[in-house]
Structure formats: C-alpha cells, structure tokens
C-alpha cells in the first residue's frame, strides 16, 4: 500500500509536468489578437515589440524551459492583464481561503443532510419518506442551478432581512451562499446512496443477516450502509479539495471575492501566467484527491486491492 502510494506520488510529479506542458502549448495556440486590447490600431512593429516584451516571440521549447526553470525556483510569475505586474501568488493568496471556507461549509452541510436522507430513503423504500426525498431530489435535479440560485437570493435576502451584497465578516451573509451551494450536493449524495443501498439490499449476505434474525435497522445501518458507501467514499476527498475551485455562479451572484470564475476569466483574457498558476494549483489538488480516494476505498473495503497482484491480471 505504502509502496503503491509513493510510486503514484512520484508518477504524479511527472503528470503535473505533462499537464503544465500541454496547457502551456495549448495557450500558445490562442490568437495573438487576444494579447492586445487595441490590436486593430497597432502597427506591425508595435505588435512585434509587444510580443517580444512578453517573450512570446521565442521558440516554444525556450519559453517552456524558462517557465519550468522559474517554477523550480518557486516563482509563479506575475500577472500581466488581470492585474498588471502583481505577483500571481499575491493575487491568489487572499482568494483561496474564502472559496475553501465557503465550499467546505457547503460540503459539510450536504453530507450531514444528504447521507441520513439517502439512508432513510433506502430504509423506507417505496414509503412516504422515500417519495418525499425523491421529490426533493427530482426538483433540485430538474431546475437549473443558475435559476434557483437567483430565486433563493431574491427571496432569501428578503426573508432574512439582509443586503444582497456580500460582507465577509458578517456570519449571516454566509447562510444563503452556503445553503444554495449545498442543495445540489444534498440531492446528489441522497440519490446515489439510495441507489447503491437499494442495489446492495438484494445481495445474499443481507438475506443471511435477515435469516440470522438481525433487526432491519441493524442490517440497514451496519451491513448495507458500509458496502454502499464504498463507491461514494472515492469521491469525497476530491470533492473536499475541489472546493478550492469555488463556485462561479454563487460567487458572482453574491460578489464573493473567491476563486470562482477566476480561471475562466483569465483564460478568456489570455493572462497566461495566471492560467498556468491556477492550473498547477487545481491539478495538484485533483491528483492528491484521487490518491486519497483510492486509499479510502481500500480502507473501507479490504477486498479491494490496488496495483499489481501476484497471479492477478
């Protein structure tokens, strides 16, 4: 296990390198018009000297090498368009904790509500609670988030008697964004947990437990739940770490100064150093989440083995 994980961590370094290289090459395919605000009015010489200033006129391998050399020295570069000449780390540092806090609060709320909900729905399958829960899941799935976020903001701010604009120090302001963000995940966890538990409940070991005379609650909560949770645990570390990405809808609706939408924004504005730094951050987080997820799966279900096994395939 330890060997497997360390091997994977080493390989992940290589993966990160490849991701950055690919993103770097892709970014260089962007139209050069995008680098200049007033491209049409510039003369050919002005464009060339502009490109030279940004180092974009050099051959690709040279540019790539320079980026990795700077990266190894811990230099993520400076932003050029998003905020001129400000180091990328300085721009990201205040934004990350905000998105992280918002996202993990929302994730926590959705786990606390979603998991019991899914379990109870499976326990009382076909009964009133199941229908009620399914109704909720269907509603959240059906109405696009972009729409119900708007209505929640509109009526929620009236109900709570607060202003629409966000204030980071007022805990009341966190209620609506956190609640809005968790709704989708509540439905997601409840739906899949119910599905897995219902699938699991026709297995032979459940019948054995029933023949042994265990109570229905005991079977549900200690036998079926653990097995049904295995496929879900895989995604948990990723979901937690991914909260750093932020929510583009929520953060723009409530004007929260987080990470949400930042990546899309800097890609569209072709601020390449910013894009590279954010991609590096998100990729690192994503890879670690995947490894943690695989480890959690093995811990929860000892029958699962990862990597090569003698006699296996």
């Amino acid at each position: 296990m330890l060997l497997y994980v360390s091997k994977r961590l080493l390989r992940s370094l290589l993966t990160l390198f490849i991701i950055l290289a690919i993103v770097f090459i892709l970014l260089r395919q962007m139209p050069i018009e995008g680098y200049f605000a007033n491209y049409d009015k510039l003369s050919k010489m002005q464009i060339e000297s502009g490109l030279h200033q940004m180092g974009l006129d050099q051959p690709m391998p040279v540019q790539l090498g320079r980026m990795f050399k700077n990266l190894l020295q811990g230099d993520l570069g400076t932003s050029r368009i998003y905020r001129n000449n400000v180091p990328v780390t300085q721009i990201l540092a205040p934004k990350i904790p905000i998105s992280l806090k918002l996202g993990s609060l929302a994730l926590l709320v959705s786990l606390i509500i979603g998991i019991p909900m899914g379990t109870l729905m499976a326990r009382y399958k076909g009964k009133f609670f199941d229908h009620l829960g399914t109704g909720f899941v269907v509603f959240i799935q059906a109405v696009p988030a972009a729409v119900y976020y708007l209505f929640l903001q509109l009526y929620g701010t009236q109900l709570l008697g607060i202003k629409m604009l966000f204030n980071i120090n007022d805990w009341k302001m966190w209620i609506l964004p956190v609640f809005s963000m968790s709704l989708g995940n509540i439905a997601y966890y409840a739906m899949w947990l119910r599905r897995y538990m219902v699938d699991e409940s026709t297995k032979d070991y459940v019948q054995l437990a029933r023949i042994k005379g265990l109570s229905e609650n005991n079977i549900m909560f200690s036998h079926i739940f653990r097995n049904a949770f295995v496929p879900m645990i895989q995604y948990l570390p990723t979901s937690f770490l991914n909260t750093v990405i932020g929510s583009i809808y929520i953060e723009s609706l409530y004007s929260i100064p987080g990470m949400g939408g930042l990546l899309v924004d800097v890609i569209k504005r072709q601020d390449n150093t910013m894009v590279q730094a954010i991609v590096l951050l998100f990729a690192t987080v994503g890879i670690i989440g995947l490894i943690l997820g695989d480890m959690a799966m093995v811990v929860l279900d000892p029958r699962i083995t990862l990597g090569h096994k003698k006699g296996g395939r």
Partner: protein
Amino acid sequence: MPRLKNPAITSMEEEFTKRMAEEMTDEELFSFAEFDESQVERTGYSNYSYWRSTFQAFARRKSAMFFLSLVVLLVLFTFIQPMLPGQIDYFQVNNDPTSGLPYRNLRPGTEVTLTDGTQHRFLLGTNSIGQDLWANIWAGTRTSLFIGVTVALIEAFVGIVIGILWGYVRKLDFFFTELYNVLDNIPVTIVLILVAYILPAGVGTLILAMSLTGWIGMARFIRNFIIIIRDREYNLASRCLGTKTPKIIMKNLLPYLISIIMLRMALSIPANIGYEVFITYIGLGLPATIASLGNLINVGRQMMLSPSLRYQLVYPTIILSIVTISFYVSGNAFSDAADPKQHV
C-alpha cells in the same frame, strides 16, 4: 428465501438417472463422458428473457411510463411544431406595421397585427428583440435535446470501453490513471475556446468540445465499479476455469453494471443540457442566432430583476425541468427494472 429447485427439472433429472442406470453397464457408468452437444442444451424449459422481463418490470411502473411518454411526445412536438399552421419562424423579428418598431417584450397571450396584415396571438409573448418566445422555446428544446443525447451517447460508448480497460487490466491502471489526471486537469474552458477558435461556432463544434472532455467522468465511474467487482469470487472462478478476458467482460462484468450505466446515461442527457446553459453563461456557448435552452435561459436571467419580464426565464426553465424530470424518473425506474433480482 431458500432456492427451490424447478420441479420440472427435478423430475427430468430423476427420469434421466433412472434410465441411465437401467441402460448402462458399470463400465459405461464409470468412464469419462464424451462431449455431446445435444446434452448441453438439456435443461428444463424456461422462457425467461432478460430484456423482456426488464421491459415488463418497467411497464408496471405507471409514473415511469407517464414520464417516458411525456419525453417522447415532447421530442415529437419539437419537430411537428414548425409545421403546424399559424407558426412564426423563431428567428423572425416581428414588427408593428404602423410604427415599424419591433414588438418588444410582449406579455404572454397578447394578440397583435403583424406586418403582413394577419392577426397573431403570441402564446408566450415575445423576447426583448421581438422574436416569438413560443417558437424560440421549441427550437431551443430541439437543439438542446439533440446536443444532450448525442454527447451522452458518445460519452457512454467511449467511457465504457476505456473504463473497462482501465479497471480490469491491471497493467493499464497506471497509464490510464495518469492519462485521467492529465486530461481531467486541462481546463475545459481552454479546450472550448480553442475548439471554437479552430472550427466555426455551431452545434457540431459544441458537441465535439463537450465530448472531448465528457467521457473522462464516465470512464472513471465505470473503472471504480470494475475495480470493486473484478476480484469477486465468481470472476475468480471464471478466471480459474480459463475464461477468456473478453468473455469475462461481456458476460460477467457488463451485465452487472447495466443498471448503473443506464441510470448514469439517463442523467447525463439533462446534465449535458444544463452544461450547455453553463457554457453559455461563461460566454462560450452557441451564437445568439441559434436558439437553445442555454441561450434562452441566459437572456431570461437578465430579465430577472423586473417581475413583469420574469416569464422569459420561467418558461424555458419549465421545459428544461420537464425534460430533466422525465429522464430522471424513467432512468431510475429502468435501473430498478434492470436488476434481475427484482424480476419475478
């Protein structure tokens, strides 16, 4: 519930053993049996068919049948609607014959005279540039459903093939895991922008851009399930008996996954439609000349703050919600019906 032997089979077996004992000498009885093809098929007669039972179980669910027919009718109507009498093309801007100005933001149900002198009732009103919202919604539903279904099919096909290889063949695990890490971490926005930069904007380009990145999630989903079941006893037994890998995949693994694959596919159609809404929101969606639910909802969002214009957001949302609910309910019911243990 103990497994009961089929009485027909039991009596056949008894008869067979009796006949064998009568007709065969000891020597014959204790020699190895030859492979005889006619004996292979010798079982009790059962007319059980997996797919028929699945459809029967599905048809018993009234609500599922209702939503399935609803979505079928909806799809049919998106094609029939332009051919109905008295319809206005969704792209046409409707002008007032007296002033020459377009009919902007007409309330639903308003009846006005058009430039060609005919009376027209705008069932759902008009949008901010004077186009018929009713026609726009149906044209948009057609486009969005087409995108959703096509992307879901491509995703499912590529995702299942890659997912099985990734999960089942241990030697490929590292390779695919790293490939996943690479592809999953290249921002979709870059891919979208670059595809839009190389190819002309349109439905085909959007489908390509969405499929390029969409199969990854499906592949990982399948891979996780394969890892969970690949070392179960029945697969171990199959491997020990020398079953070839393709046969294990087709006969042991895939049937086990069919219910979750169906559910996932049924959900991915509305998810793709919702994704189109998101792509439009970040400004990389279809051009405004093509009606789609994404375009309609994003235009509607801007009308949100004036209560009298909210209908422009509400109507496209209702259609999108109906589509999603239908796929969700029928997908779930199908997934339940596909579990052979639920069959009678």
